[in-house]
């Protein structure tokens, strides 16, 4: 469902050109659980942003669900992001003045869905994330793990095909981190394509397929069958 062909992403830093992504060829099928690992500055996040259509390739072709993303206009891009892609960030990125429930429904609000319909979906998401009692709390009244669960609920509220997580456990303690990973893996089992950028080897090992990146290139791409499944 995701296909990257000869993707390059160059940045101009001063008078130097930095190749953040250097000839990336990658195919990801529906329902995969993929981890992207590598040192800082290896291009992991750039790859994730590119797949999430927040960033644009300098050259190459990116196909999502058979559609050539590189040729989309701003409007189509935004709509595709809204409907097909969910983001989870290390820093949660919750809007502090909105309650948990309001943060979760934000993508639906942006899409112009009616409040009645939104309410149903948000209720469901809250239930699934075990956040019912926290629905009307502001982010600063939530624990780190709860915040990230709110962020995951928000990322999945539009039922996207792909969930992109950039260091989702980076700001969490061991236990909350494990919680979040469990949540993400449950979603993956239900069919969502999960792509996780991480430094955490433990997390990398759990994924079904892991990429290793160095200097904008994919240096290893191996699949490992999960023992537990």
């Amino acid at each position, binding site marked *: 469902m995701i296909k990257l062909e000869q993707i390059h992403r160059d940045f101009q830093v001063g008078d130097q050109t930095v190749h953040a992504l250097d000839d990336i060829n990658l195919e990801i099928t529906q329902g995969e659980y993929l981890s992207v690992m590598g040192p800082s500055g290896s291009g992991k996040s750039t790859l994730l942003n590119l797949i999430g259509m*927040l960033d644009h390739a300098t050259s190459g072709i990116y196909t999502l669900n058979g559609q050539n993303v590189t040729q989309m206009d701003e409007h189509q891009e935004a709509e595709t992001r809204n409907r097909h892609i969910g983001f989870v*960030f290390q820093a949660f*990125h919750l809007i502090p003045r909105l309650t948990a429930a309001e943060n979760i429904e934000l993508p639906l*609000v*942006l899409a112009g869905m009616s409040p009645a319909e939104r309410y149903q979906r948000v209720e469901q998401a809250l239930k699934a994330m075990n956040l019912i009692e926290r629905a009307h709390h502001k982010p600063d009244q939530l624990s780190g793990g709860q915040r990230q669960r709110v962020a995951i609920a928000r990322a999945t509220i539009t039922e996207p095909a792909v969930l992109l997580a950039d260091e989702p456990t980076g700001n969490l303690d061991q236990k909350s981190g494990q919680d979040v990973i469990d949540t993400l893996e449950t979603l993956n089992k239900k069919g969502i394509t999960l792509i996780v950028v991480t430094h955490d080897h433990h997390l990398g090992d759990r994924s079904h397929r892991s990429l290793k990146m160095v200097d904008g290139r994919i240096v290893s791409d191996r699949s490992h069958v999960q023992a537990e499944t």
Partner: protein
Amino acid sequence: MLTRDFLSLTGRSLLTHKLRSFLTMLGISVGIAAVIILTSIGEGLHKFILSEFTQFGTTLVGINPGKTDTMGMSMGVFGTERPLSIEDAQAMKRLSFVKSVVGLIQGNAEVEGNNRTRRTTVYGTGTEFPDVFSMPVQRGQFLPSDNPFQPRALAVLGSKVKQELFGNDNPVGQRIRIGGDRYRVVGVMASKGQVLGFDLDDTVYIPLARGLEMFNREGLMEIDVLYHEGTREDTVVEGIKRLLTARHGREDFTITTQQQMMDVLGNILDIITFAVAAIGAISLLVGAIGIITIMTISVSERTAEIGLIRALGARHGQVMMLFLGEAVVLSALGGCVGLVFGIGLGQFLTLVIPALPVHTPWSYVVIAEISAALIGLVAGVLPARRAARLDPVEALRNE
């Protein structure tokens, strides 16, 4: 995005920084209040001055000697043009549309009566004066219709002159001296107050022919014609022009209609109102700069949030609208508060200084509110565009 959600999101973010939003709003409020109060005074002045003039009626035409195309006192009073004569005034009475005609000459003289003396304005005029200028007689009668060329020595006192010379006594029938000549008082005018600084009560009226003699003048300073209502103004002007041109051999006089006076005056007053509004607008400008400042700060503070909503699928336009919305809501609310302040202050001024005419037309209120919202829109464009143009990847990196 639904309008309801749009408003809710906008309101929420404004309420997050209550003090900041309030102060920004206050900037616009002060501006709008200033514009409203200044234009209200301007407009009040406008109405006041026009009503001072219309109290003489709108079907009034003045004829002055000398031909001018501009406003102001005609030099013909002292010049070589053929003067306007009592005969001219007599002739005009025969025009069909004319209701009354009265000639006028004005000067200063010493008035002596009841062993007191007062220097005052003396008008030489005719029996129709109260009619033409809507100035009623309070006691006795106005000058009777004598032979216009040889009138009796009769005088009518303005209420102030009467008060000064005779106190509460009845002056009718009393003898007075005006400029050394003996006159008999036949009436007292009702008090009219001041018009633009001229005290209309500090006057004495004597017959026109005697006025000409007293001030040693050949011609009248002015002839005023009151025409029948429903007559077209240009018919009146044309009729008078034809008659006087025939009598004088050329057009050596100026006809000023009340409407012309009002138009010119109205224009001047409009400019005054506009000028004070412009002064008020300066404070609005300052308010607008406040909005730009706060919105710019707000955009940089919320950079990460902007990146986030872009990631969640917000389009450029939506981001722009959200920030523009905040600016417009701020300024529109500020405008409302300013309106309340401005109108309230106007009412207060009316209470405290009743002489100061204050009038706030509804159209100004509506225009002020619309401009407040527009100011917000314009002031918000720059910061909102900045927000919309942020690179989402960069924005998300901002914590």
